[in-house]
């Protein structure tokens, strides 16, 4: 301990206790001091995405890049017409980034901090279902416009309704029903199915909805095993052995993080993809990272028609180029999702501003403009038709992975698009109940 003794003097009790008092006082007062009046030209957006941990690489970072691409373009007025006005309602955007890690309790307090201490005008974010469910009521309580770009749990708008919360994407029912349709169409002889899904609400819901929908379409089908490895598990040795042993026709998986990449590597090395058809309901973000390491023929979606599955439109072309310019990699679906949320926000602000004859609209005015908004995003039409106009109603797409060796790029074959009316419950009906009730009212093209 002798080496540290001189240091002790510096850290003398008095010195530190004064420091302690100053720290508490300053930290409380910086928040307590009245914030300088918000300049009319800036709009402060709090962005909450996974910046650390296992979800950051495949999800959080591309999602943040999507936000950044749009902020740069909106501030510079660079999005193609009709969105080529500068700023949102004329205001330049300033973003504050917060890590989504630490659990829902932490995130709720951080949400309050964003609103009450940092005085943001809008919050965009939340990937994890647990976090978005926890934050939504607080957003309503604090009257804070909150746009959720990614989180997929159906419970968000099925179990409650919110005034200030918007989700610019369909819930996970869409993925599961779309997956069942794709198998039915492309592999009509598939009878035995197995699941390997992460052991948390997302994985459990995804698997349940998929196998219920599949059973409905193929009444003589059979589930051979349901594996639920721990979220972000690294090795799947035993799970793959079970899947090899049971030889299912189809293996369904809603893995999405680094664990998906580990699973694909181990499954491919042991030839699992040659025995069974593997369907990854949200494998697109990992696809580019894996490249040639992803075996051909695996069925993949992007939680909707995003990324390579997105239809080619001028707006989509622009987005791909703008993103690629900034980040040298192609945008993946989390990038698309945050980008379309930002775009929706801009449209709502501009519309609200117009409605009041120019100037910065109030939050309530933006909310009104956002409700039931229908807009053309990057290769997809977003129709805020669900949840009293707060939740998007979109279709999905599935395709089979093919690595193009000549160009070194990941592509798809046999792409199928599914209309929103085909893969979603009718308005006002809970997704799970709809599937259990025989998916009545579905309109598939």
């Amino acid at each position, binding site marked *: 301990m002798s080496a540290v003794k001189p240091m002790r003097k510096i850290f003398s009790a008095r010195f530190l206790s004064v420091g302690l008092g100053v720290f508490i006082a300053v930290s409380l007062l910086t928040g307590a001091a009245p914030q300088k009046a918000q300049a009319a030209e800036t709009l402060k957006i709090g962005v909450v995405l996974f910046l650390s941990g296992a979800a950051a690489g495949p999800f959080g970072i591309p999602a943040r890049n999507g936000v950044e691409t749009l902020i740069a373009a909106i501030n510079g007025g660079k999005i193609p017409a009709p969105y080529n006005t500068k700023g949102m309602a004329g205001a330049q955007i300033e973003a504050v980034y917060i890590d989504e890690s630490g659990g829902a309790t932490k995130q709720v307090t951080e949400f309050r901090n964003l609103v009450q201490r940092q005085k943001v005008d809008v919050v965009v974010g939340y990937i994890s279902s647990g976090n978005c469910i926890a934050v939504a009521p607080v957003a309503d309580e604090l009257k804070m416009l909150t746009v959720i770009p990614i989180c997929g749990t159906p419970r968000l708008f099925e179990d409650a309704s919110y005034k200030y919360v918007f989700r610019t994407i369909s819930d996970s029912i869409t993925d599961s029903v779309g997956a069942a349709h794709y198998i039915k169409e492309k592999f009509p002889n598939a009878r035995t199915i197995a699941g390997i899904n992460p052991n948390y609400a997302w994985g459990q819901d995804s698997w349940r909805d998929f196998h219920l929908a599949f059973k409905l379409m193929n009444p003589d089908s059979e589930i051979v095993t349901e594996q639920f490895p721990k979220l972000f598990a690294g090795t799947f040795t035993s799970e793959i052995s079970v899947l090899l042993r049971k030889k299912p026709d189809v293996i369904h998986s809603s893995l999405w993080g680094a664990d998906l990449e580990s699973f694909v*590597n181990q499954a491919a090395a042991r030839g699992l993809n040659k025995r069974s058809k593997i369907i990854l309901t949200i494998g697109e973000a990992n696809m580019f990272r894996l490249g040639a390491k992803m075996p051909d023929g695996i069925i993949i979606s992007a939680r909707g028609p995003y990324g390579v599955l997105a239809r080619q439109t001028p707006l989509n072309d622009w987005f791909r180029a703008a993103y690629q310019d900034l980040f040298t990699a192609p945008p993946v679906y989390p990038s698309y999702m945050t980008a379309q949320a930002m775009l929706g926000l801009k449209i709502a602000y501009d519309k609200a501003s117009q409605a009041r004859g120019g100037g910065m609209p109030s939050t309530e005015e933006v909310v009104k403009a956002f409700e039931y908004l229908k807009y053309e995003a990057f290769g997809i039409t977003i129709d805020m038709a669900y949840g009293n106009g707060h939740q998007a109603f979109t279709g999905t797409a599935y395709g089979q992975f093919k690595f193009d060796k000549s160009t070194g790029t990941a592509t798809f074959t046999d792409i199928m698009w599914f209309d929103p009316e085909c893969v979603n419950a009718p308005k006002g009906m809970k997704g799970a109940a709809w599937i259990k009730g025989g998916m009545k009212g579905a309109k598939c093209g």
Partner: protein
Amino acid sequence: MLTLIAILLDGLIFASWIFIVAVGLTLIFGVMRILNIAHGSLYAFGAYVAAWLVGQYLSAGYAPMGSFAVLLLSAIIVGVPMGFIMERGLLRFMYGRDEVIMVLVTYAVFLILEDAIMLIWGTDAYFAFEPYSLLGNTEIEALVFSNYDLAMIALALVVGALLWWGLNHTRVGKYLQVVIHDRELAQALGINVTRVFTITFMVGAVLGALGGAFTAPQISVTPGMGVEVIVLAFAVVVIGGMGSFPGAVVGAVLVGIIRAAAVHLLPQLELFIIYAVMALVLVFRPQGLFGQAEARKI
């Protein structure tokens, strides 16, 4: 029958992996009475360095088989300096403090290293998948096993044998055993306990990194990968008996087989079962299967 073979092999593969990590943990605990949470960080560092080095090595066009040597090398270049710095630079100023304080010191180091990983390697995943499929597969009826996984069993056996030999047939090993048995006696015998501590910590660190390095070719190496392994390795060590070498062997095999059996037969119990086994063992044998109960002299 096939199920049985699958459970056995899967269990042994899992056991081999967790044994390599846990034996380092139990060694450090046995000798130094430190429950090293930063062991998980060493595991992660081993994986990162291995993934990065293997990538470099292969893109330079050297013989693919040499990548196994690169994995081994990664463990050493992570474990030796990091173990040395952690023990010499930090832990030795803390000796004599309460065991729980020592746990917290390593917890603080763990927090620091978690972010250090992101500073060094960023948040993107690293892949070093090539070595995993280099050795081909073995087919047993419907089952296909990667020979790399089977080689992990061999690696664990080699590590175990080397450690056993090192503990029983080298001077340092015998010193270690004396220190594990009775620290005061060791000092009375004139054993340089300080040096024994440093060596132990470095060996433990290399083992942690080795576990990570050889896991790297199987997985996508990302931040946060060290968290889970700590609790799992703790569970193995507690089941086997803290500080006991045979305990680590038996604990690892027990956990491996039981977990594999759960995955094959009752997948819904997977998350639950290891802790249930741990609680059961603690209830009936608090000191672990091979731990020694210490009675207080009056």
